[in-house]
């Protein structure tokens, strides 16, 4: 049944909580749920709380799948079922074709140690350890030797941009840095699937934006399969390849952001999406997207070519060592360098229009975007490259 590149498949998942562990009540609850009864009705008639009922979805390798819903919609329960922190009451969870709900304790341990890692809302970090000790924790419980696990941990620390902080106490880190530690810790295990439970929800908007961008960058590089939980529709649409909307424990719609915008399944989804349009889309940070192809100026033309080819695009964004924006190199430019007609530095087009206020209203940049040859580059006060704004995204923000 499972397609080849499907990593994770959830089939008809139920999770019931309740003071009664009696089979009769449970059977009655299932029956009601199957008939489509609401959570409230089930609660009243059986005393059982149906946290999730009949949820199915599948995630492809390398996909970033977002589950979104209001608090109490069951999204956190689902994500905890995916590594069996919660034991589902009924249903199947297939990871690489194996049903993990049938796993014994030993197999589960193995699964958690090697295949599935999780990032928590408030980090879930060990305050008695330094950054390095936290990041190495997963490898430590797996029994990896000290030197090896610390090397691996250092690699991850560098990747999330915490170089130099490895021996800092957690109490001296900011919220954003702590989340970076959480991400590094989850990645250190080199899992196939990364679960992120409201990982950025507690952060302030600026830091959140940074981390979202960071996450996309990491995913691009490492090709992880990510299941991301959020209650923020903007975040969902910005990050997700596909988005699933949950309501009262049931899945309402699963689609790509574009299709969801175009064809909302019902009024609830419509209302949810409405939030995107009215509240936040009107500023730069909400419509900017991540360029698929970024190279460093030190990388050279060959890397740029490879990267463009891999992503099927005809231009690459060039950044400096600290993600500071430098310019764009086109396919032609890169080829010219390869053929020795130009140096790489000369091939970079530097007069790209830039936007440096992430909170600027979209209306302000419309004239800029309309006349630009390339998408606008968004940079922050530190000149760090944050994303791009295409003509299409500017215009589509006015459609709704």
């Amino acid at each position: 049944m499972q397609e080849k590149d499907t990593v994770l498949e959830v089939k008809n998942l139920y999770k019931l909580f309740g003071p009664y562990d009696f089979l009769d009540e449970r059977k009655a609850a299932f029956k009601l749920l199957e008939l489509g009864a609401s959570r409230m009705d089930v609660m009243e008639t059986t005393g059982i709380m149906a946290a999730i009922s009949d949820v199915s979805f599948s995630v492809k390798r390398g996909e970033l799948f977002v589950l979104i819903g209001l608090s109490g919609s069951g999204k956190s329960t689902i994500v905890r079922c995916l590594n069996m922190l919660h034991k589902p009451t009924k249903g199947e969870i297939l990871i690489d074709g194996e049903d993990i709900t049938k796993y014994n304790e030993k197999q589960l341990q193995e699964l958690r140690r090697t295949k599935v890692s999780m990032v928590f809302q408030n980090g879930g970090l060990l305050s008695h350890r330094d950054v390095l000790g936290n990041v190495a924790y997963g490898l430590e419980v797996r029994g990896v030797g000290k030197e090896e696990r610390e090397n691996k941990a250092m690699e991850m620390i560098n990747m999330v941009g915490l170089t130099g902080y490895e021996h800092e106490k957690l109490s001296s880190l900011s919220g954003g840095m702590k989340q970076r530690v959480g991400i590094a810790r989850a990645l250190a295990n080199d899992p196939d699937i990364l679960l992120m439970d409201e990982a950025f929800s507690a952060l302030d908007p600026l830091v959140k934006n940074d981390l979202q961008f960071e996450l996309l960058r990491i995913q691009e590089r490492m090709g992880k399969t990510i299941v991301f939980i959020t209650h923020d529709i903007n975040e969902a649409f910005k990050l997700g390849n596909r988005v699933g909307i949950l309501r009262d424990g049931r899945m309402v719609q699963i689609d790509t952001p574009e299709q969801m915008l175009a064809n909302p399944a019902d009024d609830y989804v419509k209302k949810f999406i409405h939030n995107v349009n009215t509240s936040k889309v009107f500023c730069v940070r909400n419509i900017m997207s991540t360029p698929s192809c970024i190279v460093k100026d030190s990388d050279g033309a060959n890397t740029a070519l490879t990267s463009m080819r891999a992503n099927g695009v005809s231009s690459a964004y060039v950044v400096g060592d600290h993600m500071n924006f430098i310019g764009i190199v086109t396919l032609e430019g890169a080829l010219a360098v390869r053929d020795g007609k130009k140096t790489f530095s000369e091939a970079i087009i530097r007069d790209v229009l830039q936007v440096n206020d992430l909170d600027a209203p979209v209306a302000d940049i419309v004239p800029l975007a309309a006349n630009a040859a390339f998408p606008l580059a968004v940079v922050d006060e530190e000149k760090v490259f944050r994303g791009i704004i295409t003509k299409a995204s500017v215009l589509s923000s006015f459609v709704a």
Partner: protein
Amino acid sequence: MTSCLLNFPNINLNIAEPIDEFVRYININYGEVFVAAKKMLSIFINGINGALDMIPWWLMILLVVFATKKLMNSYRNGVIYGGLLFMIGACGYWHMMNETLAIVITAVIFSLLIGLPIGIALAAVRGADTIVRPILDAMQTMPTFVYMIPAVMLLGPGKVPAVLATVVYAVVPVIRLTSHGIRQVDQEVVEASRSFGSSSWQTLFKVQIPQALPTIMTGINQTMMMAVAMVVTCAMIGANGLGMEVLIAINRMESGRGIIAGFAIVIIAIIIDRLTQSLVQKEGK
């Protein structure tokens, strides 16, 4: 008729006698077990006492000074504590102090050996609290002599029943605060630990206990304080040391002698308290 309502009716429930008989029965039939236990404990206490006696007085004072420097980062406090310790010796109580310390240290060691695992188990087993809590309350509020006399009957008077009585009294805070501390660990942190495939033991030793350590250390500190506070009561069943000195002074109404010996106990308590407290704060950071 009315007297029955006014005065409590004469029911004469006799529970005391069977208990007497039980203690006597145990004592006569299983006395050997207690004698063996007593011998082992005696060796332990005497060992610690001997070790303390072997440390020259000036070295002990220097140790306190440097421990204070290291833990509290203050030479001033170190010198004060060293000076107070010197005063104990100057009043002629050095040897008695060692005897008292031997009892306190033994009692604390056993309190921790017993209290930490029980505290951990209490945190792990849901519902155990409802059963254990009244027992802990009883241990803390039961007048000490009530269980000291049976202890003397089974073990004979001296330092061994004194240690036993001290443990009964002082083990409570370390049990309470250990289980409290572990249960208070952020649930998300515990979940995170499990999500990385930690076994229950790994979660316990790598996450829950280290996270609860500041609270556990507070419990240990309180246990030490309560052990010191039992010193005079212990003297009443024949445990030598500063407590006996206080007891003699009280019985003779020699206020001066009582106050000085009492202050020696206070000094010991203060030094132990401050040093372990600063250990707690260091851990907490």
